[in-house]
């Protein structure tokens, strides 16, 4: 059992080490393209980890989480369009925009339950999507090209792809640490409790709505930061970033990795990005196989990769 746990923990440590040294490894094997792949993976892992906070721990199945990726990205894109490249200023806009969007929509969404919640989060994200599609000033469908990445203090430059990568990686680690502390605190107990039995929590005396709302806002802001990174990374923003299929993919990353497990979303995102990359190299019809894979994961893999790993390591003794 203890050895098994080490094996499981070992996988996590191995992945984190790989990520930590990714730029050096990629430099060594001389395939610079892979750095882009890994950077994208890390950014999506941040988004997935933030979704995991509400979906995995809080039981709030948000089908509109990609909206925050988009809002975060537009929070660089729109200032950049007006010639404002100050990174901290853009980050502040991201946090305020995502915070208020999640607060407003969360206030309505969290009054509903079950399917209604899934659909209404989806609908709000669509609302954002269509709003941006119809604003000609900011490129509508075509989006905006961002000429320069955010300027950060202390001369830290994001134009260098290795520093860009490490910024993403450290934000991922930082957020995972925050989530870890959150879910084990008193606040986290309330969130996890109301995920499975909200009415019991209320009868114990918890006004669960306000805790769930705050959790929803925290996740939204975290995902917004991922969007801030994504916009910087791609140098391009478009409503496509908050398309509802993006939200579906984020949910899949969380479930694939293991909802309600701290590192699950990282595993899930890594698997997702790699499978997508490999499949799309084989055939233009890769989405067919990807869709079937997704259905198979739902039908046959309970608890995601993280669950598989711990099952495997437990039977391994």
């Amino acid at each position, binding site marked *: 059992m203890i050895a098994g746990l080490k094996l499981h923990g070992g996988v996590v440590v191995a992945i984190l080490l790989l990520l930590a040294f990714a730029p050096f490894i990629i430099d060594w094997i001389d395939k610079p393209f892979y750095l882009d792949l890994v950077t994208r993976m890390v950014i999506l892992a941040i988004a997935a980890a933030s979704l995991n906070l509400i979906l995995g721990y809080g039981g709030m199945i948000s089908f509109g989480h990609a909206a925050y990726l988009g809002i975060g990205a537009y929070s660089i894109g729109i200032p950049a369009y007006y010639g404002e490249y100050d990174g901290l200023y853009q980050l502040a806009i991201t946090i305020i925009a995502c915070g208020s969007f999640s607060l407003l929509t969360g206030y309505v969404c969290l009054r509903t339950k079950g399917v209604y919640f899934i659909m209404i989060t989806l609908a709000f994200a669509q609302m954002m999507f269509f709003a941006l599609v119809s604003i000609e000033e900011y490129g509508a469908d075509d989006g905006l090209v961002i000429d320069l990445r955010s300027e950060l203090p202390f001369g830290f430059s994001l134009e260098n792809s290795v520093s860009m990568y490490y910024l993403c990686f450290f934000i991922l680690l930082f957020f995972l640490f925050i989530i870890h502390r959150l879910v084990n605190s*008193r*606040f986290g*107990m309330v969130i996890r409790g109301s995920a499975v039995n909200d009415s019991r929590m209320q*009868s*114990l005396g*918890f006004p669960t709505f306000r805790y769930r709302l705050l959790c929803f806002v925290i996740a939204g802001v975290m995902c917004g930061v991922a969007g801030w990174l994504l916009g910087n990374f791609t140098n391009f923003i478009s409503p496509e970033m908050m398309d509802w299929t993006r939200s579906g993919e984020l949910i899949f990353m969380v479930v694939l990795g293991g909802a309600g497990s701290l590192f699950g979303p990282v595993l899930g995102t890594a698997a997702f990005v790699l499978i997508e990359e490999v499949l799309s190299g084989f055939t233009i019809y890769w989405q067919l196989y990807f869709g079937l894979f997704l259905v198979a994961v739902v039908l046959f893999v309970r608890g995601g990769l993280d669950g598989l790993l711990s099952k495997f390591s437990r039977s391994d003794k």
Partner: protein
Amino acid sequence: MALLEVNNLHKSFGGISATCDVSIRVEKGELHAIIGPNGAGKTTLISQLTGDLESDSGTVYLDGKNITRLPMHKRARLGMARSFQITSVIDNMSVIENVMLSVQAQSGHSFRFWQPVSAQQELTETSHEILVNVGLQSRSLHRTTELSHGERRQLEVAMALAMRPKLLLLDEPMAGMGSDESIKMIDFISSIKGGTGILLIEHDMDAVFKLADRISVLVEGNIIASGSPEQIRDDKQVRRAYLGDE
């Protein structure tokens, strides 16, 4: 002043009255049992008391405070705890975490984000004591789903107790229990009796007559009799309506 004072409480569903003009009182330290045949409106009454269901008319006072329109969590904060007829615990947590939640609920707000609960002795120690009291300490780290039915019922009551309630609403705590488990539960309830007011709903007549200081009989949403166990035993109307069919 009674601990719980219910005046003319009424609730109907689509024209059918589930509870009708119900008035009951529970004194401090008293165990007041409500009996009645199936469908008499007992669970509706409990739900109205806890705020799960909104009442059509009538008032509920807890310790002199009008709580008729308060939401569930506020009533809980004021000292009203309940156990559910169908066991309702937090199933993705361990036994002790369930109890810790109850303790936590009574100790201020939970906007505390950083310190792990497992390191907070005020939660862990109190919870451990309560588990020792109900005899579940050996199961403390198990998941609730691993417990037997009887143990889940015990946990349910432990969670209600951990709230240090002024008033405890027990909705058929013995439901589905084996006779051994029932006896343990009866002993347990009599051990906590006196410290807190209890409103007990139960089908098991032996248990009710053993435990109750006062009994009210609810039939078709109406209280048809209320009094000491002896009075209820001798009440002709009650015998006819309820006990007579035995």
